């Protein structure tokens, strides 16, 4: 029987990153994935014969450090592409486009404002950068080393100068809506700039207190908040991580669902010593690392009886109901959006901030938005292998689709909603309906079941101040270690959170090795 140093539960991208770092230090690593392929929410699968897609359709700020450390270039990830243009669609074709540093389709005044705005936000986002590739200090821990990130934040704030510092403190807790109103006139531009900060969380432009912070936070890895698709598609990233894993002797077993984490009662207390796979097989290892979300890890795989009571209660309280649904359309040709030559990019259907806000409002009361807002990508333009030749895949993140519906999520509800979404897209791409070969809608409940993430949540747990930094997923487990010796977390539920960044996996590996 092989003796493993580390067994990792789940083969999401974070698990793969973590495994690769551990293997670089000569660890013998086994990764167990319940589904038939690696990649988690970023894995590609066939949703209609001949048509493939992945739930995560772009890569937002994948860490450049990880890219270099793991030499992913050697494994086929030829340079990460430039940020995708982000297009706020207009029915008549008068779109607003943000491409790199330049914004078009707006007045000169908005253009100048945007230049100022992006300089400011870049400086501020930079402030939060020290928190990324690092373990956050534990509450009550006064070790100098761990407090350094805070010291760095302090120093960086001082270096901003008095005016900037005041401005930072003012806007960091502002609702995005107010910040946009201060700077811009064009409703499409405002909606566009909000979007990438909000997506995936239970926030809308008017949400008080931390929507600007979340936006800055996501910008802080040097991507200005824009997304990218690697050459050859998102799946290239997963392929590269798997290829690197293979070359380092990491074993990845798919169709291997972990049923429970095995614990051993030792003199010093409980210790995680292995896992049991669904077929009954027991596998032991020095370290058990879970990339499953914290609720699944602690409440399902470990069990409350092996944990402390207050800790369990904090895990139970983690807010993790997802608010994003996925629409996938198999198309017999490239969709034509009015006034757009190229449908390559992140295409937003969100005419203004008020529409975003209303959609959010309805979701609060368990209703699907009457006037849905969404982000569309045609991934097959970057990765032709996703569809038969000449055909395409449309992938859309539909925001503010409730996990818990006032009425049930049943087939009728799903079909009605798909129809509503297609009607909406039709307003911008009038011929879309005739192009549809097949469609699929994944509600947060579907995402939860298929990808085994509590609530089907984008970030494995709400992305808000009460669940960030040393509170992510909760104190007692915010440093990747858990109250159980030998058990670590490495997924999106840990600091710094979700998106295809690889950072939780990177930081977890660092903790395991230290």
């Amino acid at each position, binding site marked *: 029987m092989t003796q493993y140093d580390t067994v990792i539960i789940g083969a999401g991208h974070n698990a793969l990153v973590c495994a690769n770092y551990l293997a670089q230090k000569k660890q013998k690593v086994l990764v167990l994935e319940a589904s038939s392929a690696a990649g988690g929410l970023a894995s590609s699968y066939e949703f209609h014969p001949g048509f493939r897609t992945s739930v995560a359709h772009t890569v937002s700020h994948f860490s450049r450090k990880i890219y270099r450390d793991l030499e992913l270039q050697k494994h086929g990830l030829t340079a990460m592409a430039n940020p995708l243009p982000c297009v706020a669609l207009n029915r008549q074709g008068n779109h607003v486009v943000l491409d790199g540093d330049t914004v078009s389709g707006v007045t000169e005044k908005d253009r100048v404002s945007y230049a100022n705005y992006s300089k400011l936000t870049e400086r501020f986002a930079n402030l939060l950068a020290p928190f990324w590739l690092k373990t956050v200090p534990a509450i009550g821990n006064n070790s100098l080393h761990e407090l350094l990130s805070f010291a760095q934040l302090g120093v960086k704030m001082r270096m901003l100068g008095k005016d900037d510092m005041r401005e930072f403190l003012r806007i960091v807790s502002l609702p995005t809506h107010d910040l946009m109103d201060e700077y811009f006139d064009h409703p499409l531009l405002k909606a566009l700039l909000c979007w990438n900060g909000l997506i995936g969380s239970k926030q809308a432009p008017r949400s008080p207190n931390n929507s600007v912070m979340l936006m800055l936070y996501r910008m802080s890895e040097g991507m200005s908040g824009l997304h990218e698709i690697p050459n050859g598609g998102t799946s290239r990233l997963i392929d590269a991580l798997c290829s690197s894993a293979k070359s380092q002797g990491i074993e990845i077993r798919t169709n291997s669902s972990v049923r429970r984490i095995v614990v051993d*009662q030792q003199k010093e207390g409980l210790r995680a010593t292995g896992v049991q796979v669904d077929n009954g097989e027991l596998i032991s290892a020095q370290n058990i690392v879970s990339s499953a979300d914290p609720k699944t890890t602690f409440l399902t795989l470990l069990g409350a*009886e*092996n944990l402390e*009571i207050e*800790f369990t*209660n904090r895990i139970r309280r983690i807010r993790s109901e997802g608010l994003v649904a996925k629409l996938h359309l198999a198309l017999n040709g490239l969709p034509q959006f009015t006034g757009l030559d190229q449908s390559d990019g992140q295409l937003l259907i969100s005419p203004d901030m008020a529409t975003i806000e209303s959609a959010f409002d309805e979701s609060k009361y368990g209703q699907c938005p009457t006037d849905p807002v969404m982000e569309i990508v045609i991934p097959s333009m970057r990765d032709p292998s996703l569809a038969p030749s000449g055909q395409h895949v449309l992938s859309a993140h539909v925001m503010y689709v409730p996990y818990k519906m006032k009425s049930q999520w049943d087939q009728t509800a799903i079909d009605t909603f798909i129809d509503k979404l297609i009607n909406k897209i039709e307003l911008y791409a009038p011929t879309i309906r005739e192009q549809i070969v097949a469609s699929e809608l994944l509600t947060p409940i579907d995402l939860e079941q298929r990808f085994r993430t509590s609530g089907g949540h984008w970030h494995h747990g709400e992305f808000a101040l009460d669940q960030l930094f040393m509170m992510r997923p909760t104190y007692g487990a915010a440093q990747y270690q858990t109250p159980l010796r030998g058990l670590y977390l490495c997924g999106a539920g840990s600091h710094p959170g979700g998106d295809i960044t690889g950072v939780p996996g990177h930081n977890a590996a660092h903790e395991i090795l230290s």
Partner: protein
Amino acid sequence: MSDYDFSSERPKPSHFQQRQDELNIHDAWSSWNGYKFAEYFYDVEFEYFCVRNTCGTYDICPMQKYHITGADAEKMLDRMVTRDVTKIRTNRASYVVWCNDEGRLIDDGTIFKLGDDHFILNCGSPCSAWLDKSAFGFHDITIDDKTDDVAAMALQGPTSCAVLKSMGLENIESAKPFSINFFDFQNARLMVSRTGFTGDLGYELWIDHNLAIPLWDAVYKAGHDLGIHPYGDQATNMLRLEAGFIMPGYEFNEALKTVHFEHDQTPFELNLGWLVDFKKPHFNGRRALFDEKKRGPRYTLTKLDIEGNKPAEGSFLYSNKRCTEEIGYVTSGMWSPAAKANIALAMIETKYLEGEIWSEIYYEKELRQYSKVARCTIKHEPFWSPARTRATPAADF
């Protein structure tokens, strides 16, 4: 001015209120968990002597009584408390404590095991929120707060067994300490446990609240010639201190109600290490308690015999007579009639236990304040622990 008239804060009557009202000649009431509750009835010392010499009854209706049932009840309790619940036999009671995640004491109480899937947890403060949290993750479990449905009284003192015998509780004398026994009382089930909080021979009686007054009357009728009297909170405090039992608000501050860091206590600090079982499966606070056991507790609750007769209540303790180095504080102190000694429980920094201990006692004489410094001697045995407390069969006296 607000319209709030505080009426909702009026203590509710105990199930024995009718009888206690007649006996509480000073109307000396306070409240416990929202129930009207006697500070004393006629005279504290008199009530104390009743319990030590004959017997007394004490109202424990306000004590919280949770019935925990289901196949997972034992597992859930075992994870919550520090003692091994699987070792409690059916119809036996066990003294337990439970801690928060950091190993700080939340409360103490007794667990009664009535069957493999039926337990009762009795404790001084409401803890249903904690029980709910503790039960999360266990599936076959029901927690029922029966506090308002059960009437309960403690019957304590040397003649207590005789009273129950004369009430007709057959064979009660052979009931062992911590045993739970059942009798028929007016066609209902009367539960009698040989438990109590006085360190003396004694029992606790539990019955449906509708039978509270008939039970009271039956006990008092049987006890008429055996010196039975009610006793209140103040006498209880004397009795338990002689027995060396801890009391919230004196020896410990419930961890869930403590604001300041480490102003609560651990079982080791309270000298209750014998209740912490590291051999049983995982329980709450284990990690912290294991570390503390290795490190040794910072404080240790200690029994003191103090020279002189001035009660040392609230006094500071020092390592020398000049009182230059503070090493702890007295948590409860009194002149003990039974031990004929000036006794106290005190929290003392463990590292000073080997050396001298001096207490600076403050007292008042006709409005004048005085202080004196008295030498303290550590006692390892309870101040009061007569053989009759444990003897089975229990004698009549």
